[in-house]
């Protein structure tokens, strides 16, 4: 039973922070879903500042408002647990993304297996470095679980190459291109012979890339990390960025909403099912950390100079 005026079921998508390119892209997915499903009222919102407390407030208010389903990309899964629990108790369907450790969720959607992703990034980096030399890692913040997973499995992978030496790992970038830029310069100064960077947050490639570019080290130093094609374009061209890895937030947004719809219709989520979304056409469905399930797609993309132009966002 919904408390809001219209009778259409309401699916509210809440992102980490609204306005930034990544989630603007996601909103196009939500919009597309809304278009395809006129019988459902789907919309996206998010906090003005990158602060989990602000996101918590929004989710709280939406729960109070009485939406039928929540599709949340938690800033910090842990912080939302309490509220999401209350939401589920109120009979609200909860779907999450980028939070495979979320206990209070009906279904968590991941574009891919985080370990695989980290490994893939690092493999690309190793290949560029020729398995030789010093390298370091950046994470959005030490608190960001997925980022830690990526660099973690990256380190694992690097063990295959005895020549690769990890130095000053896990630098925090706070997803701020500017700060990352300063930090990267420091590292370049401290280790004049550094050969590789593996970065995690969406803006890290921009900061580190700029540092490499300005130092005139494009091509000499390798940089592989999560990033979006459009923003990274010139740095990819100049060779400051070796390769970017990402998944399409648009598709992820659609996938979340589709799953929410299915759950609203009391349908089962079965292993290997097709969500009708590119990259989620054969998802693995396993038991999640909580009562809910963990839905993992195959939406990983690695792009470099040669092929990034196929993805214009």
């Amino acid at each position, binding site marked *: 039973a919904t408390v809001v005026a219209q009778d259409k079921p309401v699916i509210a998508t809440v992102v980490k*922070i*609204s*306005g*930034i*390119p990544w989630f*603007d892209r996601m909103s196009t997915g939500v919009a597309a879903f809304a278009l395809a499903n006129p019988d459902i009222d789907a919309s996206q919102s998010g906090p*003005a*500042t*990158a602060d989990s407390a602000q996101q918590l407030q929004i989710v709280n208010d939406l729960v109070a408002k009485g939406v039928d389903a929540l599709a949340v990309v938690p800033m910090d899964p842990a912080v939302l647990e309490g509220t999401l629990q209350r939401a589920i108790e109120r009979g609200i369907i909860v779907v999450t993304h980028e939070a495979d450790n979320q206990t209070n969720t009906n279904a968590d959607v991941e574009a891919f297996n985080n370990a695989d992703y980290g490994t893939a990034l690092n493999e690309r980096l190793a290949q560029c470095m020729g398995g030789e030399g010093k390298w370091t890692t950046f994470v959005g913040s*030490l608190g960001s679980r997925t980022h830690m997973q990526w660099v973690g499995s990256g380190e694992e992978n690097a063990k295959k190459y005895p020549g690769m030496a990890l130095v*000053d790992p*896990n*630098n*925090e970038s706070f997803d*701020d*291109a*500017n700060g990352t*830029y*300063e*930090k990267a*310069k*420091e*590292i*370049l*100064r*401290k280790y*004049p*012979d550094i050969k590789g960077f593996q970065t995690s947050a969406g803006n890290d490639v*921009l900061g580190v890339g*700029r540092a490499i570019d*300005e*130092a*005139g*080290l494009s091509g*000499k130093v390798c940089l592989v990390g999560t990033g979006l094609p*459009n*923003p990274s*374009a*010139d740095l990819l061209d100049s060779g400051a960025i070796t390769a970017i890895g990402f998944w399409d937030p648009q598709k992820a947004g659609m996938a979340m909403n589709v799953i929410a719809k299915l759950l609203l219709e009391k349908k089962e989520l079965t292993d290997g099912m097709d969500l009708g979304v590119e990259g989620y056409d054969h998802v693995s469905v396993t038991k999640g950390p909580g009562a809910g399930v963990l839905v993992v797609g195959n939406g990983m993309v690695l792009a470099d100079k040669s092929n990034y132009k196929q993805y214009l966002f």
Partner: protein
Amino acid sequence: MSVPPVVYSGEGLSKSKRPGLGELIRKRPEIITLFLLITICIVVGVVNPAFLQASTLIDIGRASVVMGLFALGVLIILAAGGIDVSFTAIAAFTMYSMTLLVQSRLPDLPIAVILIMATVGGALLGVINGLLVHHLKVASLIVTIGTQYLFRGFLLSFIGTVWIMQLPPQMGAFGRRQLLQFESANGAVTTLPVYFLVLPVAAIITWWILNRTLMGRAIFAVGGNSDIASRLGYSLRTVQIFMFGYAGALAGLAGIIHVCANRQANPFDLVGTEINVIAAVVLGGARITGGTGTVFGTMLGVLLIVVINSVLVLVGIPSTWQRLVVGAFILLAAAFFVTRQRRK
């Protein structure tokens, strides 16, 4: 008529005749900041000689441009006994809307004009602050908290939130145009961009206003005691409008430079750094209660903060510990600062 000054010249002289470090420091607290700065550099240099190279200097210099411009504005406002926390919002507002304007409407506007327009735009927003502070007759901290939310809210809800990644060419070019260049061991080059020059110029202008114009004296007068100043014929209105306008102008300029330097216009940038800027100015010897402060000290304060933040990696402090270290250091500096300043 013959006057025997013996009676009171006593106080006058005894107060100021005493030379010695204590006296000097009490008069020019920024000396402490300088001392701190030098000590850090020496220590870091010893721990990691990589610190001692031209490129470091250049990087620190370029990194302090934006904060430095902000700080100069804050200095003037602190000197006049006010506080401003809205300047970052002003900067974000002008830089983003300016970039948007150039990108969408006036693609071939020369960079000089862009800079000027941004400065003027910032000044206008600053003047709004000034008018509000003057007519509402409340502490400027309160008013500027309000305007910070107002400006930023307006920017993000009505002007736009989408990052601008492809800057208009002339802006990008300005960000890249270089003054000097250094080649280091690994063939890495460090460049001092042209926009760096803006800071020293702004600093000199600010110094000149504060020390060579009646406005400058009026600012300190108002900072000393606004009631008395107005009784003596200084126009509070003029002073307040000027100081906020000036701070706004510097903020606008800083904003546009921030954009050019980062090759992207991110409307979420800058806001949130205001307290650090104020801290830098206070570390530079300006009293939070107003009436004091020097440009030289302010620049030192900015350098201190920038250096602290940028040597962490070099010294090899693990990232988990960095916040703690910075915090502890600010406390240490502050404590050292006060104790030194108090002993006569």
